[in-house]
């Protein structure tokens, strides 16, 4: 059923809020920005048609404040809310509340989020639909003894995971039975952070590749995929760099993984854009890891190699348009470096502060997604990502050369950033050859230029 969207409230901040506003402006859709007091000088506030302060700096009282956000939507007559990524984007309750207030949540439904948000439930859904998953427990483990029994069945090494966890929390690798009880206790304690300390076990795949498939589904049950992104370069489960196509990919593997991802989406009649994450082992066996029911930080590299606007697709799907029944494949090579306000030579310690000088790279094949400007004060209350730098070229080698050039051109003064780390990464032999797995950052040695 087609229903035009006229005004979107962006329930987010930073670069993604600006990203959404830009597409809305192109589509002639009015925008409402919300912001905390810490973000009053933020760029997304400046470029929206209307902007409302909703609370103090702490996210719980501002960007996670559902009543305040719904109030703003009602006061400004917004007919849709775009949640961006993080914050409330995968909050099933928020999706439901939007629906109850006749506000279109630009994303999946409460049911989709619930089905995929709970990792144990997601695994079960995949198994029921013939999508390969890492061997593991079918449900939650009630006792440590059950855990040990299952671990013996699956075979060490195993990974104990919190069903509600994220960002690497509530996870422990267990290599032998002697360590089981200690690591069980640790994982459970961390998992309790998510108000749910339920854990399950999976076989731990040594040195996997983290390869995810972008999918899109409309309101009529049609689903398609937009190929893969390789996100194996991670530090403490936080992605640092992403690229497409994956240097580990083959046409056959892409076809199989794409098909599996579409099967997963079709199984729940997924609506919106989403990402199915897989682990791929050295033999190119792939296993479902989890599904993210939102737009992702790294969506831009898929856009650059397919010439699409995924935020626009989200809005069109939300309005009730049908998607083309075809898949999309990379027509070029794109790499994204996430530049954070962190000191890469001091354990990536966050360095909020004021940007006193800024020059952003440009030119052929360079895309910069950022909310920073000269004079901007990076608040300490939120994540440290400040610039997404994307290089696009016909070949992987050229994309690396472009990224290297762009990183050299980039100037950010006043705060420390991870740009220097990315420069070293572009020179790393294993990276340049495309031979890396999720273990890469454990072995990567960053050279501190100050140390003689």
């Amino acid at each position, binding site marked *: 059923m087609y229903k035009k969207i006229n005004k979107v409230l962006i329930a987010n901040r930073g670069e993604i809020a600006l990203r959404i506003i830009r597409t809305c402006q192109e589509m002639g859709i009015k925008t409402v920005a919300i912001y905390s007091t810490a973000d009053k000088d933020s760029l997304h*506030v400046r470029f929206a*048609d*209307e902007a*409302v302060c*909703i609370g103090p700096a702490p996210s719980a009282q501002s960007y996670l404040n559902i009543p305040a956000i719904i109030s703003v939507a009602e*006061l400004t007559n917004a007919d849709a809310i775009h949640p961006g990524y993080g914050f409330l984007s995968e909050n099933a309750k928020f999706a439901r509340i939007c629906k109850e207030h006749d506000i279109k949540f630009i994303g999946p439904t409460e049911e989709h989020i619930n089905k995929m948000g709970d990792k144990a439930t997601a695994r079960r859904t995949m198994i029921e639909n013939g999508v390969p998953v890492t061997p593991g427990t079918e449900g939650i483990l009630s006792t440590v003894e059950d855990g040990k029994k299952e671990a013996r069945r699956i075979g060490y090494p195993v990974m104990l995971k919190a069903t509600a966890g994220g960002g690497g929390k509530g996870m422990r690798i267990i290599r032998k039975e002697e360590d089981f009880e200690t690591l069980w206790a640790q994982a459970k304690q961390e998992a309790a952070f998510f108000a749910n300390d339920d854990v399950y076990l999976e076989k731990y795949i040594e040195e996997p590749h983290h390869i995810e498939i972008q999918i899109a589904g409309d309101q009529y049950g049609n689903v398609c995929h937009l190929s893969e992104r390789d996100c194996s370069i991670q530090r403490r489960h936080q992605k640092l760099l992403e690229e497409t196509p994956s240097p580990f990919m083959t046409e056959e593997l892409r076809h199989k993984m794409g098909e599996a991802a579409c099967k997963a989406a079709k199984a729940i009649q997924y609506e919106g854009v989403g990402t199915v994450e897989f682990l791929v082992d050295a033999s190119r066996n792939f296993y479902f890891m989890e599904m993210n029911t939102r737009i992702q930080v790294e969506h831009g590299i898929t856009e650059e190699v397919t010439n699409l606007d995924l935020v626009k697709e989200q809005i069109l799907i939300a309005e009730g348009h049908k998607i083309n029944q075809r898949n999309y494949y990379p027509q070029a090579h794109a790499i994204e470096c996430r530049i954070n306000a962190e000191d890469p030579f001091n354990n990536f310690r966050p360095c909020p502060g004021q940007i006193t000088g800024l020059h952003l790279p440009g030119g052929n094949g360079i895309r910069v997604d950022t909310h920073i400007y000269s004079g901007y004060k990076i608040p300490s209350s939120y994540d440290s990502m400040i610039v997404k730098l994307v290089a696009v070229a016909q070949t992987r080698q050229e994309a690396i050369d472009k990224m290297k050039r762009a990183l050299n051109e980039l100037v950010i003064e006043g705060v420390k950033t991870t740009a220097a780390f990315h420069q070293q990464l572009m020179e790393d032999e294993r990276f340049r050859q495309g031979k890396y797995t999720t273990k890469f950052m454990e072995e990567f040695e960053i050279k501190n230029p100050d140390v003689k």
Partner: protein
Amino acid sequence: MVNFKEVQDFIRAVSKIGLSEVDIQTEELKLNIKFPAGEKESQGVKEGFQIPQFQMPMLSGMSQQMGSPLQAAATTTTPIEYRQETKEDDKKLLTIKSPMVGTFYRRPSPDKPIYVNVGDEVTKGKVLCVIEAMKLFNEIESEVSGKIAKILVEDGSPVEYDQPLFLVEP
């Protein structure tokens, strides 16, 4: 030194003339103001939210003297308004700000009397107004005791977090 009051008077005078855009540059100050193109936005209850005071980088050095930085008018469709800041008025006045987003009402319901008027003495804890959000009415209590010097928001208009509502003379 830039005299904020002079700049403020200048802008008020210019807005009355009915120009659409003014550009002014001196050694100390660079100003660009765009006025709405003759559109009359209804001053009714559901007025759109103003784009808040945005610090233009070139004026940032003068922000202390300027008080409320000027509004960047490029995309606004409603006339420039000034948030009343205590700095420019009597420095002894205390500002009571909104603790939430919602609609500001001066009475508990249309048939009941107004909570407070200018000149009223209030004690700490006295209900000054209600702010309605999602059909729930939240009583806003005064954090200070004193006399209501000014009411900054019109009855029935939307307010945002931290928006100044009342000026109180302690």
